[in-house]
């Protein structure tokens, strides 16, 4: 029992990331009908927003501290981050400590801008071209974006710690009456899971309860008719692209402490997220979320030794295997609408 | 015994009885039209004929062979060729290539790995395709890309693609739907011309009375999923039941 619980928990954080990326992919596909291979790159840019904010906040000036000497006997230089100078030592330190959550505020306008530019500058011209062309051009864009990041930040992963308050682990086992240390779970992953639920909830209620969301949902169902009603659906769709980019971005921001950002993390997540979207059903938002969590948890179960001993290597292929089975037996995915890209 | 025999066909969609007790026999060398107001079950019947839908009851046989559940290419190989509402052609290929493909399909069946001959070397088929294109007056457009043809020419090309296979039955699915009157008339002329030149059986599913009465030799009137009456055009024209079915429709609209 405790083992099962542990695996479910382990699957949640990856599942959250899959769900968030897949949600954005589905928004874009559902509203704009575009298959966006550059969506993983948006996730990656988000993660690097974390890195950037951390770096900006840690910007320091150097002073010579006459009271201390370094090991050569010279007066030591001391680096003091500007934020400490401005806000006082303890406030400054905690600002730096909390740079990852702070990066969310920073990343949202950036991601929306990136999304706008992408849509207006490039994707817009591909609405009427075949899906293969869309895949190709966004694939090229993904390469460009990841190379730009590589040029600025280098090829190595950059550790980006979470606030100190969340560095420990929580002993779920104790809480539920199991032995100590049977189910321990890092705090930050809990935060990530809760965060993803909030974002998903936010997106859904936005689409459900605002007029804007209603129009967009109508547009997803039947673009032409909505256009005939005299509603400028294109503008709203541009905004949806920005929103999808922002969702992927904040997912990346918060993921930075779990996995040190590197320039190819977007591509790594992209392939899996696409599989998630297909399993959930192209164009179905609940499907994307459900499939994201489901596959994350499934993956974590498959990596249990008990299961690996029965079917060696299953942890490596389980997601793909599920995707293949689903595509062949139920082409529209778990919750896809009938007739949407079934062939 | 007709070429195409439809016996006791019924089809239900949930609570809707789309077809019931449809009996129909298309005789060889006749043009047989199936007409009916909107929602009479024409497209459901057509989909049963081409294997897209499997009826709940009854049978559809072509030359004594059941077509139910057969794939589109198998049905074509039996000798049934379809003409679509909007001309379906291979837009990226040339006019000649468009006609060559059905030639190959006719000769080689549904699949053959003929990767080591060249298309040009197939003299017989090239000649056959050329002759066919001359028949429909398109010999001067052989190397044009098919998608750049006018709508009328696309229809002629599609017709050529069907006829070059010498089909035993030509199945036309509302060939003039959505066309302007002039286009409709030229399509009628084309079909008449074809009928005069060769012995061919046609089944036309059509909404437009003008088309039907200009072409058909036998007419089946479908209403509410069941055949109302089957007769010659002259008799159909004055048939009270038909008037009722169609007048009923006009009153609604």
């Amino acid at each position, binding site marked *: 029992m405790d083992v099962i619980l542990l695996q479910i928990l382990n699957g949640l954080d990856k599942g959250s990331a899959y769900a968030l990326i897949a949600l954005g992919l589905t928004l874009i596909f559902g509203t704009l009908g575009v298959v966006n291979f550059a969506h993983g790159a948006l996730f990656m840019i988000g993660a690097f927003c974390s890195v950037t904010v951390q770096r900006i906040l840690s910007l320091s000036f150097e002073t010579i501290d006459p009271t201390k000497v370094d090991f050569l006997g010279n007066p030591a230089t001391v680096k003091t981050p500007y934020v400490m100078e401005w806000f006082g030592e303890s406030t400054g330190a905690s600002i730096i400590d909390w740079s990852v959550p702070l990066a969310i505020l920073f990343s949202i306008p950036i991601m929306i801008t990136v999304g706008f530019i992408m849509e207006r500058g*490039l994707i817009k*011209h591909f609405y009427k071209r075949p*899906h*293969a062309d869309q*895949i*190709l051009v966004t*694939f*090229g*864009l993904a*390469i*460009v974006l990841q*190379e*730009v990041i*590589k*040029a600025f930040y280098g090829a190595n992963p950059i550790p980006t710690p979470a606030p100190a308050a969340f560095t420990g682990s929580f002993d779920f086992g104790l809480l539920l009456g199991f032995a100590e240390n049977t189910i321990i779970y890092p705090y930050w992953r809990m935060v990530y899971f809760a965060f993803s639920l909030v974002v998903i909830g936010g997106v859904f209620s936005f689409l459900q309860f605002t007029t804007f969301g209603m129009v967009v949902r109508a547009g997803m169902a039947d673009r032409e008719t909505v256009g005939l009603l005299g509603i400028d659906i294109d503008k709203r769709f541009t905004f949806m692209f920005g929103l999808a980019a922002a969702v992927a971005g904040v997912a990346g921001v918060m993921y930075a402490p779990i996995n040190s950002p590197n320039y190819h993390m977007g591509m790594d997540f992209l*392939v899996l997220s*696409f*599989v998630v979207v*297909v399993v959930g059903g*192209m164009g179905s938002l609940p499907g994307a979320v459900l499939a994201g969590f489901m596959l994350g948890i499934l993956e974590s179960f498959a990596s249990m030794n008990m299961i690996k001993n029965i079917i*060696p*290597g299953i942890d*490596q*292929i389980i997601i*793909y*295997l599920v995707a*293949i089975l689903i595509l*062949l037996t139920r082409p529209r995915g778990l919750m896809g609408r009938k007739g949407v*890209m079934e*062939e | 015994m007709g070429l195409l025999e439809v016996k006791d066909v019924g089809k239900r969609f949930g609570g809707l009885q789309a077809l019931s007790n449809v009996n129909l026999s298309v005789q060889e060398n006749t043009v047989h039209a199936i007409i009916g107001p909107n929602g009479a079950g024409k497209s459901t019947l057509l989909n049963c004929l081409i294997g897209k839908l499997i009826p709940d009851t009854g049978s559809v046989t072509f030359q004594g062979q059941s077509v139910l559940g057969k*794939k*589109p*290419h198998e049905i*074509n190989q039996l000798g049934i*060729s*379809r003409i*679509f509402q909007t001309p*379906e052609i*291979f*837009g*990226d*290929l040339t006019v000649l*290539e468009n006609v060559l*493909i*059905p030639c*190959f*399909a006719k000769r*080689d069946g*549904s*699949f*053959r*790995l*003929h*990767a*080591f*001959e*060249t*298309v*040009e070397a197939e003299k017989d088929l090239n000649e056959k395709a050329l002759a066919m294109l001359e028949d429909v007056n398109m010999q001067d457009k052989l190397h044009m890309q098919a998608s750049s043809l006018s709508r009328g020419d696309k229809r002629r090309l599609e017709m050529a693609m069907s006829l070059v*296979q010498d089909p035993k039955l030509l199945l036309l699915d509302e060939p003039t739907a959505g066309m302007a009157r002039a286009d409709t008339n030229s399509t009628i002329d084309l079909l008449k011309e074809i009928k005069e030149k060769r012995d061919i059986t046609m089944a036309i599913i059509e909404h437009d009375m003008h088309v039907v009465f200009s072409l058909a030799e036998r007419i089946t009137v479908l209403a509410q999923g069941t055949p109302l009456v089957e007769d010659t055009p002259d008799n159909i024209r004055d048939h009270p039941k038909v008037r009722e079915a169609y007048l009923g429709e006009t009153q609604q609209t």
Partner: protein
Amino acid sequence: MLGLNQRDTKFLIIVIALTVFTPILLQPFPTDSGLAQFNAGYPDLMQRFAIFGIFAIGFNILFGLTGYLSFGHAAFLGVGSYSTVWMFKLLNYNVLPGLVLAIIVSGLFALLIGFVSLRRSGIYFSILTLAFAQMSFNLAYSVLTPITNGETGLQVYNDDPQILMGENGITTTHFFGFKMNSSWIMDLGPWQFTFNFGYYFCAVIAILAFYLSLRIFRSPFGLMLRAVKSNQQRMNYTGVSSRPYTLAAFVISGMYAGLAGGLLASMDPLAGAERMQWTASGEVVLMTILGGAGTMMGPVLGAGFIKYFENIFSKINDQVLHGWFAFLPDGLENALVWLLHPFVGKGWHLTLGLLFMLVVVFLPGGLVELGQRIRNMFRKKPDANDDSNHKPQQSPHVAE
């Protein structure tokens, strides 16, 4: 000749001539000149031109003709490499059995994957092939280690059986005694040309592969494949079953990829799982599109272009840039170097990505289309009838 019409025969002869003289054509700069670094006439690179040319020609048979975009073709490349190295381990270093096995195994593998993937089309097909390739890659890294030697990569060890090796057997890859790494170097003044057996071996196979694909493009089979791309539904209503056609194309292009993988292992008896990764599949997509999908020459051009970039462009560092712009005032020189820095050297991928995007947006026909446009531009000018100094590569045939 050879079942080709006059135009195609001429075309084939040009391709053969280009291939034969590649060691000279790619070595235009004297070895002591500053531009010598742009020479590409060394064996390793030329072998890659030929091998990836084969890979791209094969990919083009699937994507260019049928429009099915596979994102998993590298799996076949990897399978080919593994098969060939296994033949080295079991028999001896003769490449022939390895290449034959590579083609057979990758063909069977393609039959399996294609049978399942081709039940869907469009983006679903792309994702299915992607999923299969990633599965193969992950398995090669983990549980299949006994066959693939995992992360280390498969290679030949001293204690391998090599039953046909004999006492004084050749210890590098060879074709009936002709070693792949043997070269004949010709010095001609300041120029140096390297004629390598391995390159010519690959080149002969590449020409055969090219010839075969030319025949396929011109055959009724090729016509059917193009019809699938144009209107699959119409195809079925014309009495043709499209599935076996697409499956045959998939298997043929899988065998081409397997052959290319086998040749890679034949030049350097190593096989690693990274050869199967989806980025490697992406590379062949890039090559084909960049050169011009659906054209005969495009994929080969694209493969050459990308491999040239990868090997030559990536060597341009800041020092080289400074060398070029030394004649400029210092400030301007530094500014230019700073500006160009992200695009060259290690940043060549960035340039490649940008180029690729430009091609997809503005030149759907790839480099081949560019060549045709340039040619047409010259033709319009009345006084430019005689453009005989035009590169022959730029007068390609598009499969009409």
